[in-house]
């Protein structure tokens, strides 16, 4: 296809996904106003398929091509060379009809306007009720034990067993990979791939998804997932798009909805109105974030009926949205990895932690939801992300890791894994308490390490947006002191072991 397209043989093409030919040809026919399809020509894997089956089959690895008549021979010759099956199955018209034939018979004859525009509009009701939730009182927590359990928990643990059974090096252009560092143990925040082998332009790719928050507030869940995708790209050295600057830095995002049925039915779906309200809020957040950060949605997918029913049991998925983001990177050589580099480097927390343990991995260990879900503060986020990009431009950053599941303590541990490093940190005073400082998942934050000689410039740039925590060292240890009390004293080796075993249980 690549070769055919470059040779100008393909006018248009579309894949055959849901609905197969009926979708691909049905949609393409809208352009000219009609098509004639000869289903009898379609190559089949076995006999006996009915015309309607041929037309709606979702058999994989098929593309539909639009080819001008004078290009047909060249395309078919090229396909023969590549041993790719190409078949002529019809032509476009402007008759206003989708004319489907099977050998000598007429299989279907559909008015195109009816087909595309006549679906009756469904009107659904949404009703939002703020859930009544409480913050639990968790006392006498063993913070070291919480951290150890978090490292091994499913959302946080190492995905090495999955990462290593797929090829992420093919094409020889992968600059930031899922696991890097001396021993291939350091988890990274976003993927970065070079465009070609000659220059150093590249693309960063990230994914934001936090379904747990939706049980508290679907708006914050959606906004938070969007922020997560952005900060992952900022962490590897990306720069926010600025429509006022002609710097060619483009970003784009795809959304992927996975939600339960939101059509109210007294018996079958009594909370349908609430579910639809959640969906509406997810979209409101999408709109607010995309327009604020100038990141356009260029595509997406939706899966809207995800419920399991058996007898009297109905299990609905939590409303979930995945944001997959891509951003241009000017020079991949200036990207940043997340692992601590050298003993003596200064460690900072960039961004502010709030009393926001609602929906956190920490609370999940205690089987509680909480109420204070992390909120996205867009103005703060933008200011911080701009400063991160500036810091990178000034070559101030040795490592950067975004803070997400499990909060600060987890991000610190992950930063230590890569180069057999440890860290010793201290927070002199806190308004939010030890548990929140360590494990809250407030958005738009990073663990950043800075060579000692650059610390002064870093602090000047970030001002109140950074908090000095401590230093990288060569010990097999992470110690954190809060208000004079040692709250974490864990061996990196133990944390790494728990993290590595998470999926192998």
């Amino acid at each position: 296809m690549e070769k055919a397209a470059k040779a100008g043989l393909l006018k248009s093409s579309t894949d055959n996904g849901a609905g197969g030919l009926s979708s691909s040809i049905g949609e393409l026919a809208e352009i000219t106003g009609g098509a004639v399809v000869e289903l009898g020509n379609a190559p089949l894997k076995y006999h006996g398929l009915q015309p309607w089956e041929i037309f709606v089959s979702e058999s994989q690895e098929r593309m539909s091509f639009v080819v001008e008549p004078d290009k047909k021979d060249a395309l078919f010759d090229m396909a023969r060379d590549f041993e790719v099956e190409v078949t002529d199955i019809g032509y476009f018209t402007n008759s206003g009809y989708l004319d489907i034939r099977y050998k000598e018979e007429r299989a279907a004859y559909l008015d195109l306007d009816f087909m595309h525009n006549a679906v009756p509009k469904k009107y659904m009701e949404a009703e939002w009720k703020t859930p009544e939730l409480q913050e639990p009182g968790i006392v006498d927590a063993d913070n070291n034990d919480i951290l150890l359990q978090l490292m091994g928990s499913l959302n946080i643990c190492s995905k090495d067993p999955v990462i290593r059974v797929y090829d992420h090096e093919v094409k020889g252009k992968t600059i930031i990979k899922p696991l890097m560092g001396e021993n291939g143990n350091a988890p990274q925040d976003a993927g970065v791939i070079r465009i070609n082998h000659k220059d150093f332009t590249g693309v960063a790719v990230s994914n934001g998804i936090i379904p747990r928050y939706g049980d508290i507030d679907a708006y914050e869940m959606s906004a938070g997932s969007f922020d997560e995708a952005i900060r992952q790209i900022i962490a590897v050295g990306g720069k926010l798009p600025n429509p006022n600057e002609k710097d060619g830095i483009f970003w784009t995002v795809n959304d992927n909805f996975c939600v339960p049925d939101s059509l109210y039915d007294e018996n079958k779906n009594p909370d349908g109105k609430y579910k639809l309200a959640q969906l509406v809020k997810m979209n409101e957040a999408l709109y607010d974030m995309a327009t604020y950060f100038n990141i356009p949605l260029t595509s997406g997918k939706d899966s809207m009926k995800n419920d399991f029913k058996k007898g009297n049991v109905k299990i609905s998925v939590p409303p979930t949205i995945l944001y997959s983001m891509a951003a241009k990177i000017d020079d991949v050589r200036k990207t940043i990895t997340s692992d601590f580099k050298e003993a003596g480097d200064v460690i900072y927390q960039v961004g502010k932690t709030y009393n926001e343990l609602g929906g956190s991995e920490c609370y999940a260990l205690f089987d509680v939801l909480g109420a204070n879900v992390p909120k996205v503060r867009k103005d703060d986020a933008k200011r911080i992300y701009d400063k991160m990009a500036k810091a990178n431009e000034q070559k101030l950053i040795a490592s950067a890791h975004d803070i997400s599941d499990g909060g600060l303590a987890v991000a610190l541990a992950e930063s230590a894994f890569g180069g057999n490093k440890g860290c010793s940190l201290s927070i002199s005073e806190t308004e939010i308490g030890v548990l929140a400082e360590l494990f809250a998942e407030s958005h738009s934050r990073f663990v950043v390490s800075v060579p000692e000689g650059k610390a002064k410039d870093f602090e000047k740039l970030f001002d109140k947006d950074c908090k000095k925590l401590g230093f990288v060292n060569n010990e097999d240890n992470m110690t954190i002191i809060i208000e004079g009390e040692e709250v974490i004293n864990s061996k990196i080796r133990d944390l790494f072991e728990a993290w590595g075993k998470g999926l192998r249980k």
Partner: protein
Amino acid sequence: MVKALVVTGFGINCEEEMAAAYQLLGAEATILHLNELFQERDSIHNYDILNFPGGFSFGDDIGSAKVLANKFKFKKMHSGKLFIDEISKFLKDGKYIIGVCNGFQALVKMGLLPNIGGNYEQEVTLTNNASGKFEDRWVHCSITPDNPTPFLSDKSITGMDLPVRHGEGKLIIRDDEIRSAILEKKLNVLTYTDKEGNSTVDYPANPNGSELNCAGLCDISGQVFGLMPHPEAYLSLYNHPDWAGKKRTNPNISEDGEGMMIFRNIISKIESKN
């Protein structure tokens, strides 16, 4: 100008980076679908070096590169000539062949490596990794001193880091006779080692459990070279998983990847002959 031919088609997917290796070093690289050779619209004789890149040719059906090896070995071209006879002539003319990963598997299964008997009989095979899984990781390989292949002729380099990505990389040798010949003639030119540089069978330093901990072979002439790791995926410093650590330690470090060395060596060799 050194001319490299990089073949593609049927599920081979590493041709772009293979060609880039030569282009970055100032040589000419042409990517051709195998059918263009079989249709005789071009000939391997127009090139100095034939490259069989990595990929999933024929979906690894009946064994990685089995179908590809059969195609190379038994294909009758458009004019009636056998493709394998062209390969024989190509080698008799003193030219070079390199096979990476799926390409290495093809060379081994068509008997071009190690080809100790000299009549294209299969003497070793590459089969399922000992772990039973596809392995995508970086390894360290040592280069056997005084080996016969010009691909590894730079004596100042004794080893290199390289990425592996394969499901069937475990080398099994047919019998003791072949094994002795391989060792005696130093045909096992690349070996998986631990961090200290010692040959190892331990996983994951040895990602597949190959006999002799062997990562790459050449034939007796040294003209044919095959390896499971991917040098063409380490053309730049920035391919290495610890590039950021390396750069921090040595800000003036070269931006070339260690994989370049293999291509640089063969280009030098060809240029010195022309």
